[in-house]
């Protein structure tokens, strides 16, 4: 990585903003729609405080030995923060760290909260990449997903983002109510507007969400697996034709437009996570912060690191992580890391689930559709 200025690869920083304007029907992440200006200010102060606490406890962090290569503000909906408050958050965190010259700084936004003023403030604060949660440009589909946004607003936000920022990504969801041709046309429209990156997520039903209840009650019908498979494969093919690289299960980019931050997750690069429910991978262990905003604030405000859970990775865990994360990416897995006899390599290649190129096993689009099963098999074989 370019930021390996003093011998160490650049680290990452993740900032979690747990606020939303409304709750989407499918969402199971840590977020709340109940917030006001004082709470938002307290949270930003708390996250800045968290970084200070972590710095006190980590010499490497204090000394800035690992320059920051990427930062990502996610949520929730970071655009729920007043633009100045977001700038303050970045100033109190990113700007205090030793930063690589080509820092990638991404902020997630919802179309309805991205205004021209906000965009300008963000850009001045150093944001150089925006990820928009579009999900669909179909009114009916947006309704099914419980999104507040309408197609016109989404289109306006896409256009605005592409005007202000050089690097724009958009999220789409493969879920209920989709039709192939219409979906491909939407993706084309977004690409034509100038986005360089697309995340295409197959919708998962999580128990406890309003969507799951609607499906259980028969009000919403989830597409058959076969249909979703078909749609996914059609999108992959179409985006490839449009010159995008399918570089991870759900991610597509124009060459060079890959999300460096997300790629670092899959490569096992250390990153700090700040904010409620944020997780981090720092000091050879994974941690997860307290989920509840109140608990989180109570901890940092008394000077306690707000971790709820620590996952000390042993050798086995590292090995399993490396296998499952590598398989998600187009780079694939080095064959020497495959547990012996875990897979019928020839048969899978014949069935079109993967290709063997040089010393690497790379999943095809079709193979990615069976990733969980494959991981299960490899995990069992790793013992």
């Amino acid at each position, binding site marked *: 990585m370019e930021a390996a200025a003093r011998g160490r690869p650049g680290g990452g920083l993740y900032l979690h903003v747990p606020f939303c304007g409304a709750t989407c029907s499918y969402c199971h992440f840590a977020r709340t729609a109940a917030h006001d200006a004082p709470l938002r200010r307290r949270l930003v102060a708390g996250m800045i405080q968290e970084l200070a606490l972590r710095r006190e406890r980590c010499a490497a962090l204090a000394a800035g030995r690992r320059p920051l290569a990427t930062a990502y503000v996610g949520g929730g909906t970071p655009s729920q923060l007043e633009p100045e408050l977001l700038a303050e958050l970045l100033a109190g965190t990113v700007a205090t760290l030793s930063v690589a010259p080509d820092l990638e700084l991404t902020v997630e936004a919802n179309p309805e909260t991205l205004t021209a003023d906000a965009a300008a403030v963000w850009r001045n604060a150093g944001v150089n990449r925006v990820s928009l949660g579009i999900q669909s440009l179909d009114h009916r589909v947006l309704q099914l997903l419980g999104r507040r946004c309408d197609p016109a607003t989404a289109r306006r936000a896409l256009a605005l983002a592409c005007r202000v920022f050089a690097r724009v990504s958009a999220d789409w969801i493969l879920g209920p109510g989709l039709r192939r041709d219409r979906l491909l046309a939407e993706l084309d429209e977004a690409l034509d507007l100038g986005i360089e990156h697309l995340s295409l997520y197959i919708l998962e039903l999580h128990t406890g969400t309003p969507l799951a209840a609607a499906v259980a009650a028969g009000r919403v019908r989830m597409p058959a697996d076969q249909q979703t498979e078909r749609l996914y494969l059609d999108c992959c093919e179409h985006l490839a034709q449009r010159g995008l690289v399918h570089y991870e299960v759900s991610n597509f980019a124009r060459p060079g437009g890959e999300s460096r931050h997300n790629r670092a*997750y899959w490569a096992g690069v250390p990153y700090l996570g700040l904010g409620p429910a944020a997780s981090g991978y720092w000091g050879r262990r994974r941690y997860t912060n307290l989920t509840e905003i109140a608990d989180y604030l109570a901890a940092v405000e008394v000077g306690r690191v707000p971790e709820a859970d620590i996952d000390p990775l042993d050798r086995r865990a590292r090995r399993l992580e490396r296998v499952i994360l590598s398989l998600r990416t187009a780079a694939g897995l080095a064959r020497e890391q495959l547990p012996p006899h875990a897979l*019928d390599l020839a048969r899978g290649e014949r*069935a079109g689930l993967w290709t063997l190129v040089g010393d690497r096993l790379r999943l095809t689009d079709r193979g990615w559709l069976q990733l969980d099963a*494959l991981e*299960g098999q490899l995990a069992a074989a790793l013992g």
Partner: protein
Amino acid sequence: MENTRNFCIIAHIDHGKSTLADRLLEYTGTLSGKDLKEQVLDSMDLEKERGITIKSHPIRMDYRRPGGEAFVLNLIDTPGHVDFHYEVSRSLAACEGALLVVDAVQGVQAQTINNLYLALEHNLEIIPVINKIDLAAARTEYVTEQFVDLLGCDPDEILLVSAKQGTGVRELLEAICNRVAPPQGDPEAPAKALIFDSVFDPYIGAVAYVRMFAGRFKHRDWIRLYRGGATFEVQELGWFRLARVAQKTLSAGEVGYLATGAKDVRNIRVGDTITLRDRPCAEALPGYAVAKPMVFSGLYPTNNDDYDDLLDALQKLQLNDASLTWEKETSAALGFGFRCGFLGLLHMEIVQERLEREYDLDLICTLPNVEYEVVDKLGNVSLVENPALLPTEREIKEIREPIVHAAVLTPKEYVGAIIQITLERRGVQTKMVYLDPERVSLEFDLPLSELVVDYYDKLKSVSRGYASLDYEYRRHQADDLVRLDLLINGDPVDALTCIVHRDNAYSWGLKLCQKLKELIPRQMFQVAIQAAVGTRVLARTSVKPFRKNVTAKCYGGDITRKRKLLEKQKEGKKRMKQVGSVEIPQEAFLAVLRVER
């Protein structure tokens, strides 16, 4: 000897044998009030739970008649199930009399009749007893008629008893003293004793339960087994009370035990004759046979790590059970295990249950099967008890299977259904007799292989539990038998291979295929399931590969969660068995083994 009585009790399961035995102990004062827990003689938990006696457990009672005359009563408790025919016959050979106990509600059962005939063959004095006369549903008169028909006895000779309440027990004790003949035998002749049971005791080694027919044994005598040939120095000898009580001698007419110090019971075979090494008797007692296993099943630990524990448990069980045989076996599907031979189905169930319960093992048991005689093209006969080891069709001239003679006793309304299920299982009816207007005795010749699968359960279900069954091996007989293989992606699953009649191969194969299709989870690739005889595929089906199975989103925070999920799934996978490239859940094997024909 004049005042000694050796007798046993013949009864069907649940007809109250154990309760009656307890009552005899109580009335003779062998058992004091504080020892009085139910069914004292059934020592294994399993026996108490199932209400059946597996191992005979003798006891010596001192009885003082109302006039003051003292008697020694030796009760030899016989096993109550058809699998233990041979053991029953040896127990009977140790007695001069038998109480034939029949439940006043249920009346005479198939097995009771068979054991009665066995007792008559041994010239035992039969004392008919109707038990449970206290029950409201008791049909005392009806059962009395059955007895009169069966034994040609006078109704006055029949004793009416309620073992539960103690009614008629004194009269029964008197009848034993009055009617059963005292034992004969010359105490000065060369010693001669019949082994009617043997157990292994961790402290004193193998113990023979014996009935003395002539002469006497003393402590430290050197004894010899007539058939087995082994010699031992008597470590201890004595009588049976509730526990063993050591004595100085055992002499003609008595029932007691000899501790041999042997390390297991294999040398102390039931039916063998014991004599003195230096002064042997002229000839052995008649009727000795080695009980041969009839039913076979592969026993595999669910978790391969338990293999050594299973071996250890089998060795321990064998110390006490000379009729249990086993040899090591390897199955591609199930790993390392043992092919075990049993006397019959109940014996098999008991062993399996004891292994699981007493030794805390989790087992997979393959379909029970029988021993075939396979004749090759050159006329050589070999014995095959594992279907997976059957040679190919081309090499075989004929296959002979064991045929049993089955006797079924049933209320008349179930006759049609019973004949039907028996014919479906290739049975041939040889006899049908109305014992009385209500009850019918049916006899069949039936392949044992058909009987061991589910015949008994079916019989009970079509007769609402009223029919009873007894069976006995008759002969091996050739039939058009084929080996049916189950193939998964072309690999035969040895644990599911079976030998069936050619006419049944298709329907059985189809059922197995369908069952497997339901039970094998989707995999990365299509799984082909086939049933085949030789190279001819009779039935096929397939399990389609996975549909969409992907977590689309996996960023920082999800990595730990994802990994933990995989680690949890891994535990579940340990219970999967790998067949070729396919993972089959343990449950699939178990369920297939339970498939109904």
